[in-house]
């Protein structure tokens, strides 16, 4: 593979462009690389949650009644409201990306703060939901002294349902908290003037991450909350 070395058009220019990293030829290559990297990262996130959804599916097959009984302990209204809140945060995130594309520094920060606001509402609601589960003895963390004492444990599989409920929503919430850390970083980045119409991969990738977190919830909502809505009450429904 003998190759002749020759200057490629535009090669010399990029030393003058502060937005271009040394190892890229031009801004387009750089932007496409960042987008591709983020999508690959999301593919792995997808498989990560996918493993958990797979386990969920198997156990739901094993314990249809237990799953129903467990689901009926959840508050669907709160779950639906939280879904809407998270969708709104996705919308403001899309608006932040738009602001970045149009070069509005102020718009980016405003929209990200709004996104963080909706995200916080979601997490606060989640906190109260968790607390309610704690009060009703629905936390299956035996090594922490939190025994699963609710009467629903008589139904085989209900305790497993709550293992998955906390595992999946907990992992989702953790991703949101990580997202908050990234938001702060993106805001600092924006304030430093590093986000321009030519180079805003940071905001775009942040958006992709946040939308992904939203998608996870889009699946969690029907699979955890709506499941028990239509069956007969199995046991111990107390809302």
């Amino acid at each position: 593979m003998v190759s002749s070395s020759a200057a490629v058009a535009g090669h010399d220019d990029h030393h003058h462009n502060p937005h271009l990293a040394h190892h890229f030829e031009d801004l387009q290559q750089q932007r496409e690389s960042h987008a591709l990297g983020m999508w690959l990262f999301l593919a792995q996130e997808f498989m990560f949650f996918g493993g958990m959804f797979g386990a969920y599916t198997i156990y739901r097959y094993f314990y249809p009644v237990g799953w129903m009984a467990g689901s009926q302990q959840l508050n669907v209204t709160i779950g639906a409201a939280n879904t809407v809140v998270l969708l709104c945060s996705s919308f403001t995130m899309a608006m932040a990306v738009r602001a970045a594309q149009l070069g509005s520094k102020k718009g980016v920060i405003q929209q990200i703060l709004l996104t963080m606001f909706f995200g916080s509402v979601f997490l606060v609601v989640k906190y109260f939901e968790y607390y309610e589960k704690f009060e009703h003895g629905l936390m299956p963390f035996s090594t922490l002294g939190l025994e699963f004492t609710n009467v629903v444990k008589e139904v085989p599989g209900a305790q497993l349902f709550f293992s998955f409920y906390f595992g999946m929503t907990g992992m989702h919430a953790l991703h949101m908290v990580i997202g908050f850390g990234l938001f702060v970083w993106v805001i600092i980045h924006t304030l430093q003037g590093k986000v321009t119409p030519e180079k805003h991969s940071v905001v775009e990738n942040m958006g992709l991450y946040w939308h992904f977190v939203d998608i996870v919830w889009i699946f969690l909502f029907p699979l955890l909350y709506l499941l028990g809505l239509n069956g007969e009450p199995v046991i111990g429904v107390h809302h």
Partner: protein
Amino acid sequence: MSSDGTLNYLNVTHGLKSWLLTLDHKRIGILYLIGVSMFFAVGGLFALLLRVELLTPEPWFIESDTYNKFFTLHGVVMTFFFLIPSIPAIFGNFLVPIMIGAKDMAFPKLNLFSWYVYMVGGFLGVGAIALGGVDTGWTFYTPYSSGYASSQVILAASAAFVAGFSSILTGLNFIVTIHKMRAPGMTWFRMPLFVWGHYATALIMILGTPVIAVTLLLLMLERGLGIGIFDPKLGGDPILFQHLFWFYSHPAVYIMLLPGMGVISEIISCFSRKPIFGYNFIAFSSLAIAILGFLVWGHHMFTSGQSVYTGVVFSLLTMAVAVPSAIKVFNWTATMFKGSVSFSAPMLYALGFIALFLVGGLTGVFLATLGLDIHVHDTYFVVAHFHFVMVGATVSAYLGALHFWWPKMTGRMYPQTPARVSALLTLFGFVLAFLPQFVLGYLGMPRRYHTYPDEFQLLHVFSTAGASVLGVGFLIPAIYLVWSLFFGKLAPANPWFAKGLEWDIQSPPTTFNFEETPIVKEEPYAYDGPLPDNSEEVLKAGENYGV
């Protein structure tokens, strides 16, 4: 590591800080080389201790509990900290950007970050050893691992979990680099097969690794918080753990193997002085192995309680993997046919790879056969099979790569004679160590057992003898390669008269690899027959490097 005074990536800056904060993919490759070698030594030490202990049918110098911990640590360290990162993280990092004509990986900071993540994982693993060890086997099967083992399961699982992230980030970097950073003229079908191998590997790293991450996370949650995921007492299904575990861990075998196959394609073509035979077939068989590899994990579970129907499907699909594997072996053989073959050290390792992979691959077909597997499941037959593939093949490829690109990486030549001797020694030692294990397994010796009936002793002694020879075979390169750093002859840009962009630039390369972005105009592996044996350069090379 000074060179002849010209500036290169090694001497451009000095000091520990310049290494620990480097963004240069070549330096990061060297950092990985140091880390991986360290863990290889640790894992090898445990292997040797196990083999020595197995010299006698009864325990003689370690307790059974200790024995369990030793084989677990051998497995965890070798799998997660040596085999998986070895070729991709060292040679992939070093060579993929150069081979496609790029200045660096697409994400240099992420690249360095993944090395730190790897080292943190490694130290968690070492921490697990220091705090008492783990005795579950590297597979962490539930419910023993989640409910009963009283050892450092969480620490060891988190070590594998963290190392997984390093692997994901490395894979992500490869794919973006290969897609977006190729030099003008470097079309997909002009890429060296080494790069194709790494592309396929990276796919597995990204799509498989997160599944084991979540599996180990669930295991840690179950153990740490007492929630029931895989615990039958709470209604969980331990077989589900095996499904999720092997969904990654079987493709992980191809993470170990595919980059090695890429190495072999480079070496065979170079030392046969012929273009690789069936380039497209080799390239696509890498992708085929990567994708088929995701459909066969159930062959680890034929006796686990998995349904028989599923077993039949997995059995058939597993045999299908033999097809792309065989395509590669046939193509390498055809490349050598009527070639001008020379037996330099890298070529000896490559030939060893083919021989050992052949045995390892074919015994894999035995094990894929549902009925036979019931007989030899969890015996030394399985141990021998996967060591043929993972040690015989992958480590041969690893050492072959080390010997092939060492002049490029360090700018120094190593002495040929000890290199050839050690290549033959490892082959001999390996066969002596693991061939008897096929027999042992067939006769019914279960894996992971500390004691065994007296009639197995002779075969175990053979195996230990082979392991000792293998150990010596690994030690010799360590000595002369380190020696060569200080006293070796300076390497020319292209000591093997090989083709490929990495051989067009100086040894060692400069920080950004290329003065100017190369424009690729030739097909890959444009070897044109034997070297003219009268030229002064070639005569000198034959004397010095054994071309």
